[in-house]
């Protein structure tokens, strides 16, 4: 694990490198950004990027790469940044990761690449996500994508779902010469990237550009198709002559707690809340028709501690909420959200009510929410997830006045495809079974990956599954061997 600075394009010694502080990400000030939907992070300048890149120790056995789900060659791309070859750096990342502008922004880097960066033992880890984002944005502004020229194979692949997983499969297979058509249930492409993650974290323009590029490469998209309802997998294969199908339908079914008062006006699932705001652009009502309860001056809480919860509550704040709470039943340490989002949310003035859970929603007697009865928790023995189980503290109940409550306690598998595809194996919880090596399901010619196989996970894991699936679909189409 010894640093190898020998033939490096980086002239600095390891000691000098460690001395450079982690370059801060320029961002909108908290009290400005909490009132708009523009991106919080503004991105590195060329100078900041090169300075940050110089910190990398270029480890001989880079644990950063080992810990990236798709194995981005960090030392190589970072060295190219040091040398000022930003397009080269982008090309290097693209070998392993086709959506760097997205992963650079939304990967939980602290759990992956940066979490195992050698620098982190002494100082702060290298800003790998920031650098990845920088080169991707640079490429987008300056670069011209080279369209790959490949002879058509005559094979057809249907991709179900246009989330990061499905898009990765489509992007990889079109470059192998297969005909690819993506079917999407909603009227917009992108999955959670467009209907879930808000503009202030992931500008939709980035996804639009990616989609344009894919269209140029020849990927066909058909929206407004709920596979299982509008057309079944069997019909796609038998009547529309698709040689293989990839299912990347995500884990989009919202969960509720089953506590009294969840039907009250003012109680939303995070999916509905974020879909209204992001997909339907209710934040621009009445220019857009989809309505949203007026949050100006209102008290709003989200229940949950993941990215979804933070996206919902930070959106509420931007829509004028007076008080914005996160109600989470465990403690800070267990929060599954990206570290940067927790940090940003705190700066923006979100009130974190940790070790707290609602037990009932209160109403005005006319069907409208007025508050949540909550109970404080303490952490007991570890549960199945290995995290310490929260236990209610007797007599700690208190009422929190609220106009809107958003449930962000997790999602499950949507059964539509599974229930209409005979022979497609699912696990106990309803997720599609696929082998982890080739993403093959129990149906010949049908592959699956992303959240619909693993349960709600991350963008990069969904993309990683898409990568593996594309490789094995290609193998299946060329060899015929299942």
């Amino acid at each position, binding site marked *: 694990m010894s640093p190898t600075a020998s033939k490096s394009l980086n002239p600095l010694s390891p000691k000098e490198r460690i001395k450079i502080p982690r370059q801060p990400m320029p961002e909108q000030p908290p009290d400005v950004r909490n009132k708009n939907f523009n991106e919080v992070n503004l991105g590195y300048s060329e100078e900041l990027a090169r300075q940050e890149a110089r910190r990398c120790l270029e480890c001989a056995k880079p644990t950063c790469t080992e810990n990236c789900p798709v194995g981005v060659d960090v030392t190589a791309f970072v060295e190219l940044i040091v040398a000022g070859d930003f397009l080269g750096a982008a090309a290097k990342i693209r070998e392993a990761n086709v959506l760097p502008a997205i992963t650079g922004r939304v990967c939980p880097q602290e759990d992956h690449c940066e979490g195992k960066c050698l620098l982190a033992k002494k100082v702060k880890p290298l800003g790998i996500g920031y650098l990845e984002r920088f080169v991707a944005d640079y490429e987008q502004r300056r670069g011209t994508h080279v369209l790959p020229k490949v002879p058509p194979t005559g094979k057809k692949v249907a991709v179900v779902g246009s989330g990061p997983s499905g898009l990765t499969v489509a992007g990889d297979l079109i470059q192998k010469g297969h005909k690819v058509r993506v079917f999407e249930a909603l009227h917009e492409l992108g999955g959670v990237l467009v209907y879930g993650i808000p503009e202030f974290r992931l500008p939709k323009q980035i996804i639009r550009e990616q989609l344009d590029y894919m269209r140029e490469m020849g990927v066909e998209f058909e*929206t407004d198709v709920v596979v299982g309802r509008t057309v079944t997998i069997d019909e796609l294969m038998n009547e529309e002559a698709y040689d293989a199908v990839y299912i990347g339908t995500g884990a989009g079914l919202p969960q509720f707690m089953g506590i009294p008062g*969840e039907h009250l006006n003012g109680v939303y699932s995070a999916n*509905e809340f974020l879909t209204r705001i992001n997909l339907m652009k209710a934040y621009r009502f009445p220019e857009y028709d989809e309505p949203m309860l007026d949050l100006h001056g209102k008290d709003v809480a989200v229940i949950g501690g993941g990215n979804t919860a933070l996206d919902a509550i930070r959106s509420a704040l931007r829509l004028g909420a007076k008080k914005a709470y996160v109600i989470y039943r465990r403690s800070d340490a267990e929060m599954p959200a990206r570290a940067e989002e927790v940090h940003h949310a705190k700066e923006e003035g979100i009130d974190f009510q940790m070790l707290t859970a609602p037990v009932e929603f209160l109403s005005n007697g006319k069907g409208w929410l007025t508050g949540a009865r909550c109970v404080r928790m303490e952490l007991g023995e570890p549960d199945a997830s290995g995290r310490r189980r929260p236990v209610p503290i007797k007599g700690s109940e208190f009422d929190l006045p609220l106009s809107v409550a958003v449930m962000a306690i997790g999602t499950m598998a949507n059964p539509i495809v599974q229930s209409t595809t005979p022979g497609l194996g699912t696990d106990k919880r309803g997720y599609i079974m696929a082998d982890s090596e080739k993403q093959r399901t129990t149906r010949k010619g049908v592959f699956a990956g992303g959240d619909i196989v693993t349960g709600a996970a991350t963008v990069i894991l969904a993309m990683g599954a898409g990568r593996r699936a594309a490789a094995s679909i290609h193998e299946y189409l060329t060899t015929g061997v299942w």
Partner: protein
Amino acid sequence: MFKIIKAEFIAPGIKRFVLEAPRIARKQKPGQFVILRIYEEGERIPVTIESSDPARGTISIVVQSVGKTTQMLNSFNSGDCISDVVGPLGKPSEIEKFGTVVVVGGGVGTAMAYPSAVAFKKIGNRVISIVGARNKELIIFEQEMRAVSDELLITTDDGSYAKKGFVTDELRQLIESGRQIDLVLAVGPIVMMKAVAELTRKYNIHTVVSLNPIMIDGTGMCGGCRVLIDGKSQFACVDGPEFDAHKVNFEVLVQRNAMYREQEQRSLAEYQRSKAAPSSVNAEHEACAGAPGGTR
């Protein structure tokens, strides 16, 4: 882009559209609906499929003007385009040979109940239909319902046509006359469905209603369409829209449907003030000749 092949008013404020939607036409079953987004800035609204023609690749819908979206849609004509039509959604009606089925349709609900009435008849049920509306002009689908019903009863609230009164008056008489009724299907305004449910509950007659909560995606993703059935939340778009009438909590449905009243009124007022269709609507209609269906 989904092209409107035919559009005609069948009553004041009620328009019937034939849309080009080949995929949906092939799969539609009675009781199912589509979700429409009529233009770029539009909201998504659910509308029942009244009939479909798989050979021609078309579906028909019947739309009543109530707010901005339905008023704007009802200003569209044949040759115009709708941005998005997705479906068929929801569980189809349970069509079995029950014996005698009473189909109750209130207002535009008659068009929504019609495909199920057709199916009930076809499978060998005796179908008695009760069709009601506020007045004579608003009675729709009279000929169609007559053609598939063994008996057709009509009521108008104001007595301007057929019997004066409510559909429930006719239903009560029918029940009290001692006729065997094996199933009642009621589709219409919530007050009507609730009244039917209360009536048949007393006589223990199995009754199904088609619920109309506010929806967005129609695939079980948002949970906005949840209705309280037997004290438990269910998603009307995937678990319904038809439910056992005696288990439905109608108060919660009424309350949830009123959630955006203020915003809806504002939308409608602004639309009526300007009236000119947004530029994206015109662009849409012009682009119609382009890529069909959901090709993007």
